């Protein structure tokens, strides 16, 4: 659980850019507190006294405390303990849980699976979303209908998406699996690790393409028409215009989506894996966040699970840091 919570905070942090107060709103706040100088510098404190900002922040801080800080601290403590599930016996064991984790070949293979999964999921999601955004941007008739249809999967719960795909691709009863087998492809995710991995990549991407699509279509719409028109007059075709003009101009959105997709793949795909493959066969789809759940809640190995979530937490912190440090700084958001 702590890992999920940290993921939630992370995604809030990652989308922080979007949560900032918009300019007119900011202005009204400043007026109300009566700070005339504040308009000059954005980073200066705008409130003269502490009470109002405190109460404004309190609900969010309380939620953070309850769902992030307390669980994180407990996970941190538990990572250094060996404990009975009921809490009857607890021993401090220092770094034993971590040592065991890093010694375990199962853990390293889970790291490997996670890497392949997140990368594949990222590439697939982004490229399909890009193609769809490009295509639907060029359709004039029924554009709205296409967009609505493309956005629908986002409304489907991950568990349902997972079960649906597991069923469609089930080698014994699934219609898609039968089609694949009819084409002479020996599809069997129960006996073939790469098929199982492909299945969860598909399930996770399918669910997340729409999210990428919204951002991409918005970015494409904001590409100035004047530039596109002048390129058109110079004889550039639609694909050339897309690759040479639109793509570079939406690069900031692409970077943002890459980070978001990593965060999604690393921390938010638990339900999909649980519903589609349950980490099997033979641990072939046991990604890190699923392993935290399985070791903690199925096999009751609390120490190891806590140690794993601490590792994931560190990874989440690193990603947040990386996003703010490298991407936010270098990418120009004002397209």
């Amino acid at each position: 659980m702590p890992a999920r919570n940290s993921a939630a905070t992370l995604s809030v942090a990652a989308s922080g850019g979007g949560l900032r107060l918009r300019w007119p709103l900011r202005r009204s706040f400043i007026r109300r507190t009566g700070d005339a100088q504040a308009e000059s510098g954005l980073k200066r404190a705008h409130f003269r006294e502490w009470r109002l900002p405190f109460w404004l922040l309190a609900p969010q801080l309380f939620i953070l405390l309850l769902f992030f800080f307390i669980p994180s601290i407990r996970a941190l403590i538990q990572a250094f303990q060996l404990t009975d599930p009921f809490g009857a016996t607890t021993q401090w064991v220092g770094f034993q849980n971590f040592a065991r984790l890093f010694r375990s070949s199962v853990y390293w293979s889970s790291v490997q699976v996670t890497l392949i999964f997140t990368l594949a999921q990222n590439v697939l999601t982004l490229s399909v979303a890009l193609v769809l955004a490009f295509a639907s941007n060029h359709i004039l008739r029924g554009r709205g209908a296409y967009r609505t249809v493309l956005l629908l999967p986002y409304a489907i719960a991950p568990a349902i998406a997972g079960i649906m795909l597991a069923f469609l691709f089930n080698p014994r009863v699934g219609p898609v699996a039968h089609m694949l087998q009819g084409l002479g492809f020996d599809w069997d995710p129960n006996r073939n690790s790469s098929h199982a991995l492909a299945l969860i990549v598909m399930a996770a991407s399918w669910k997340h393409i729409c999210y990428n699509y919204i951002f991409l279509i918005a970015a494409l719409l904001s590409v100035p028409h004047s530039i596109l028109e002048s390129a058109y007059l110079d004889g550039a075709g639609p694909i050339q215009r897309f690759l040479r003009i639109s793509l570079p101009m939406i690069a900031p959105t692409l970077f943002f989506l890459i980070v978001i997709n990593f965060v999604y793949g690393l921390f938010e795909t638990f339900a999909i894996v649980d519903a589609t493959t349950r980490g099997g066969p033979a641990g072939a789809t046991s990604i890190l966040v699923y392993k935290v759940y399985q070791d903690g809640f199925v096999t009751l190995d609390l120490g190891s699970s806590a140690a794993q979530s601490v590792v994931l937490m560190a990874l989440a912190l690193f990603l947040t840091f990386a996003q703010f440090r490298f991407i936010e700084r270098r990418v120009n958001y004002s397209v």
Partner: protein
Amino acid sequence: MRPFYSALAGAGAVLLAGLASAQAATEIEFWHAMSGALGERVDELVKKFNDSQKDYVVKAVAKGTYDEVLNGTIAAYRAKRQPEIVQSNERSFLTMVNSGAILPTSELMAQQGHPIDVSKFIAPVVSYYAIDGKLQAMPFNSSTPILFYNRDHFKAAGFDKPGATWQELEPQLDAIKAKGVSKCAMVLPGDYEWSFLENYSAVNDIPYATKRNGMDGLDTNFVFNKGKLVGQVERMKRLVSSGVMQLAGQGIIPIQLFTSGECSTIIASTASHAAVVAAAKFDWSAVELPYEQGVSPRNSVIGGAALWTLKGHTPEKYKAIAAFYDFLAKTDTQVWWHQATGYVPVTTAAYDAAKAQGYYQKNPTREIAVLQLMRGTPSDNSLGFRIGNSNQINVAIMEEVSAAFLDKKPVQQALDDAVSRGDEALRRYEQLNAGKK
């Protein structure tokens, strides 16, 4: 105003009286993991008890799978809101015993004046759930694996019934596939470490772990990477890779592939009778578990679950729990439960009663599990398993064995890895529970 107040007072009095009468019966909560038809049987059972007397009310709450019930119980216990009774599977025995959260059943029943005579229970149940002759939990739903088969398929392939030994059965399965009778001669059950490995070792009388499979202490080690068990996993791998044995995979329950008529056989818990009776539209039957040629087969071991009494409740609640357990152990209740669910009767009296009714003449497959459990005197290898951290070990074993099925590693190496992962978890359990049983 005055009539209003008096009306209010009257309403209050009625309310209080209502509360008082509701509180007259002691209510206890019972968390269980029975879903579908079995869940309905639990509700019926509880209703029978509630209707049989006025002092106690048992409230049955389905809390999901065994893992989910256990997790829920742990969370509730840590928050000091535990129910009175939880159903937990046989695998969790040591976790429950050493949790510090439970009141041993023998102790409870002695305190409440319903002393339990363990000799009334069938041997594999006692050896699993009792320490030094004292029951730690109340045996509830006990099962054991048997071999269900599609008689139509066997006839079509020219066989009367499955052979008693693996040496006879294997060629039959191959033939069913080769003759095109069925594309799936057998389906691998989801709990195969129980039916294909643990029970295999019990029936064929070979050790699974040292110290009588952990019965004699926590300093036990796994030894299933030697001898016949390696051969068994090799056999399973051969059946899987030749397509004779199919894996159901995510999204379908293996028994469904048998009841739909797609797969010809399945080794599954005798409690699958409920599902088979309800869904199979063909001529089916069942036989005892296959064993190795030349072996005189021992009893199989139980699966299923038992009821655990949690600490921290008032004396009246314990009185209610004892009354409920007493009701469960009654021969009538046992016979009904056995016939309604497919689980085995846990007392010999209940078995004799069902037999006297002529029940097994009409339903011969219902007796297989009982006979198989009571076959001979349990040997050191067929008493049961007392393994700490068994959930972890279970997952590790399944992962390694399926790695062998997937050709990720040779069978011997997979079993060696399973043993070393299992031993590591055993050592950790020993470290944490030093000095306990």
